[in-house]
């Protein structure tokens, strides 16, 4: 047999075994669509995703993409199935992504997802995926809570516009750094421009408030303008906030110590973070459930590049190789056109297992 054929057989055998594990844990297998409506994806992730998805046009000119991600494909199918109540789903297939050079990379994945669960699904997902790797020694779990970052930003003394900007662009590492630099130097202040804008406000106020200009109502333009000039753009301490953000993102500690260290960090910087106790409780609970045998690290930077994660996110690694990755994505289904539904899932990277 050729090496490729051996690999294929191995992949099939391993897949069967993993899917059986998932089945025993109550996950139902679904077959996912290989092609996704590009517009639907762009509606969720913006135009940026097109850079790493393989896009085509069908005969009618409609743009379609090879699925770049199986969680998104699962969420789309969940919406199409129109089922109510908790769904425990598993899948197996390839995700197609372009790297920075534009070369196509194919990722074979097996995953499981819990959608619309009333109880906390994180431990069930984590323990299910971990059971696949029972025989693996020296594996490490890296864990983070993306929602904690959002709440940290919201606790800072910054204009609302800046908070939104930092949260929106958290997943885009390079641009996020650029934003921090701008915040540090107050780059976007331009009082001269504000003065000119303000002079023109009177003209706009005389127009019909419902008049549409370039797709936006006059009232909407005036409202945003007034909000913008009231923002304390030049009297907030950008440098202090930047330091807090940078220091927070450096936190990388064993999970068992993470709650205490985060608490101390918050106290030291005199922050009032919403839902902090809830997040710390989650981290402590996971620590207890996972036990002392696992090597678990809390890393405040982990998982940020996956745009749809909203809460806990984790990765299972052996040495530097990532075997599986998962997380909470409570807004994904809504942004794809479904109802707001809590969801948590993970995918095993089959290519790395082979």
């Amino acid at each position, binding site marked *: 047999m050729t090496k490729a054929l051996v690999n294929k057989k191995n992949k099939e055998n391993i897949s069967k075994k993993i899917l059986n594990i998932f089945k025993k844990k109550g996950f139902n297998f679904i077959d996912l669509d290989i092609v996704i409506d590009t517009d639907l994806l*762009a*509606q969720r*992730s*913006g*135009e*940026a995703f*097109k*850079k790493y998805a393989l896009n085509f046009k069908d005969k009618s000119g409609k743009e379609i993409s090879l699925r770049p991600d199986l969680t998104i494909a699962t969420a789309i199918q969940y919406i199409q199935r129109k089922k109510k109540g908790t769904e425990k789903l598993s899948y197996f297939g390839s995700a197609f992504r372009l790297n920075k050079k534009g070369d196509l990379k194919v990722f074979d994945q097996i995953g499981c997802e819990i959608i619309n669960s009333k109880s906390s699904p994180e431990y069930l997902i984590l323990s299910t995926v971990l059971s696949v790797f029972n025989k693996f020694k020296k594996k490490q779990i890296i864990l983070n809570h993306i929602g904690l970052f959002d709440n940290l930003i919201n606790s800072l003394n910054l204009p609302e*516009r800046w908070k*939104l*900007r930092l949260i*929106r*662009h958290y997943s*885009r590492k390079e*641009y996020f750094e650029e*934003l921090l630099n701008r915040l540090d130097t107050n780059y*976007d202040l*331009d009082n001269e*421009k504000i003065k000119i*804008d303000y002079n*023109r*406000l009177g003209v*706009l106020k005389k*127009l019909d408030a419902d008049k549409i*200009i*370039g*797709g*936006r109502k*006059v009232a*909407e*333009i*005036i409202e*945003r*303008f007034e909000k*913008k000039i009231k923002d304390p753009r030049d009297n907030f301490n950008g440098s202090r906030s930047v330091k807090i953000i940078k220091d927070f993102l450096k936190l990388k500690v064993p999970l068992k110590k993470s709650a205490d260290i985060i608490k101390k960090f918050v106290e030291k910087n005199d922050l009032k973070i919403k839902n902090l106790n809830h997040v710390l409780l989650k981290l402590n609970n996971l620590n207890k459930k996972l036990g002392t045998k696992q090597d678990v690290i809390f890393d405040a930077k982990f998982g940020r590049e996956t745009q749809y994660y909203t809460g806990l996110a984790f990765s299972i690694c052996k040495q530097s190789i990532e075997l599986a990755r998962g997380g909470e994505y409570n807004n994904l289904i809504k942004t794809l056109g479904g109802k707001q539904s809590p969801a948590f899932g993970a995918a095993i990277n089959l290519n790395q297992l082979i």
Partner: protein
Amino acid sequence: MNKIKIGLPSKGRLKDESIKLFSSKGLNIQNTNSRNYFFSFEENSNFDGIFLHAREIIERINDKTLDVGISGLDLLMELPDEYQNNVKILKKLNFGFADLVVAVPNDWLDVQNIADLEEVSFEFKEKYNRRMRVATKYPKLTEDFLLSRGVTEFKLVGSLGATESYPFTGSAELVSDITSTGSTLKENNLRIISDGKILKSSACLLVSKSFNIKSLSLFK
């Protein structure tokens, strides 16, 4: 010795300025009539010339059927990156100046810079459940520019002309367009946002990468 195959723009100011440039180097176009695409230089028989659309000139240099040509930097940069492996900019010329810019309706007084546009695009999506549309003849340059500035919530609308009208016909909310003086944008109630310059363009002397530049000594 093989003749140098040269392409010049077939119409407009780019054509006139290109002809003037060669004349200033002592090379006058010899062309039997205005409908004839082919030309030569009275003083130098080493050239085989053809008048083509400025975009076509880049395509032909890319596939090596032309050695040299004059075209716009904007047109070259809009093509896939691979073109820049085959088409080399020998010299930026002193004509055909134009900027590719992002412009919004003049009455959007809350949008002065890209940071404002980024915010408005998110708000627009939340409010109307669709992305802001940007009408343009330059989808690649516009997309790269907006993404690099953090504006991700937009949709490009291809335009073949009269791009400035799109925000007022309901076909787009804003535009990115090429402008030399900004007067057409102004006349159509559009305003260039302060940090919205995508590209500063001019006419360029382009050569095929495999072409021996030494044989084009008159442009040194």
